[in-house]
């Protein structure tokens, strides 16, 4: 700029703003509605795509054919895990969160969820099962599962 740039911080103005609607209301979707009903029942669904079963249930398979919705069973295994100690703003958590991608043993995909165990005990391949909330608290979301716990 041929006019010298102002450089003192007090010379530059910053204006507050946002992009926030009051709230978003997300519909569950066609497959999601079936999944929601199953969760309330204490069950989990996947889809059969060819000779494989993928979790969670979606309307379509990776090859774009419509998948057949099927129920999946315990046990689940830990496919990947992490422990969250701090958020993006550098605030330490009081209690670290153990997060894992768990999948039914005979399926692909899986779901992301909490695993309730000691931090020392979490490892890949750990066998776990879902612990559901009491039926009256279930709302058809994956949080109807409170956490996954280690199988004996």
């Amino acid at each position, binding site marked *: 700029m041929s006019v010298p740039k102002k450089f003192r911080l007090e010379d530059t103005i910053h*204006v507050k703003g946002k992009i926030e609607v*009051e709230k978003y209301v997300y*519909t*569950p979707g066609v497959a999601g509605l079936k999944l929601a009903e199953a969760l309330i029942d204490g069950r989990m669904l996947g889809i059969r795509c060819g000779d494989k079963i993928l979790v969670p249930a979606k309307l379509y398979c990776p090859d*774009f054919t419509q998948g057949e919705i099927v129920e999946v069973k315990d046990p689940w295994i830990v496919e990947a895990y992490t422990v969250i100690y701090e958020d993006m703003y550098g605030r330490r958590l009081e209690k670290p969160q153990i997060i894992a991608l768990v999948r039914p043993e005979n399926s692909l995909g899986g779901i992301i969820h909490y695993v309730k165990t000691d931090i020392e005990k979490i490892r890949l391949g750990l066998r776990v099962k879902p612990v559901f909330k009491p039926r009256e608290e279930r709302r058809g979301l994956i949080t109807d599962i409170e956490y996954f716990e280690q199988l004996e």
Partner: protein
Amino acid sequence: MRPNIYVKDKVAIVGAGLTLFRRRLLETPRELAWEASKQALDSAGLTLKDIDCIVIGSAPDAFDGVHFKGEYLADGSGGFGKPTVRVFVGGGTGVMIPIAAWWHVASGLCKTVLAVGEEKMSHAYPHPQGVFAYIWDPILERPLGPNLIWIFALEMARYMHVCKASKEDIALVSVKNKRNALDHPAAQAAANITVDDVLKSEVLVWPVQLLDISPVSDGAVALVVASEKIARRVTDTPVWIDGVGFTLDNTHWYNRDLSYPRYLEYAARMAYKMAGIERPWKEIDVAEPYDPFDYKELHHIEGLMLARRCEAPKLLREGYFDRSGELPTSPSGGLLGVGNPIAAAGVMKVAELFWQLRYEAGARQVKKPVHKAVANAWGDLMQAGTVIVLST
């Protein structure tokens, strides 16, 4: 403008599919994208395996309520281990999607492209209009508490002033398009209404009234775009993309004369030049000008040079733009009649021309023989012009 066109390989549209357009649909955005894509692939007799590249288009992330909306939509649009990209020019996105699909194929780097437009506006509460509060300049415009309709009303008022167009003239667009939409299976706002109904509807921002405006919608539309070699293999009636054009005008819309969409004229000139069209008003057989508001169709007819400046209202009165007229516009029913899931609506217009040029539009088929067609979309702060010319 120096469009600099030297294109050897032809690119065709070979399939199209869409979902219903409704105020609210049960499907998630990704499911909508899948439903439209699946149909488009089926109509071309192809499967996802046959597709090389994916082009996604969607307007503000703040409608669906997902940041990185293109990434979010990727799997529903076929992005499983495939090159996937999202284009975004506000409301102009709808026509930008097939334009981007065109260069994917014309570059020789992809032979087939699945081009998907999706919008799910119903997620935003209390009203999707709330999202539009955030499209404005955060420093100079947002403090005034603007509503989206303000700018369009300002543009319409200026157009009416300069062209001496009356509210009645403009309402005729709404009447025509909502009537055309009665024959469209996806239509959300089809109706037999009169000019009087429009003039008696709720005044939102004078001169804009409720029936001057397209509704808020959920929906998705997909196209399959292919190289000439593939197109000739999969269909006997490919629809060729002859020309593409796009332009953005400046951000400062209140520094511009709003009576004429110069951004569209520039984009149209680019597309016509590429398509070898010198007299669009004679050579174009059917058009889908972008019509989120009724005056906008007239504005765009003029910007596309299908009528002289300020002449569109008169031609409209004479029935020139009816389905049985000399230059049918929005035979689909347009955004006013079919609905306006923003990016998807633009693709719907291109899909309509695809069906018209193949004589597959059924009850919507225009009376005259058709060979060349043009569609446009428009967006941002009255800035974006995207134009596509198709032919058989």
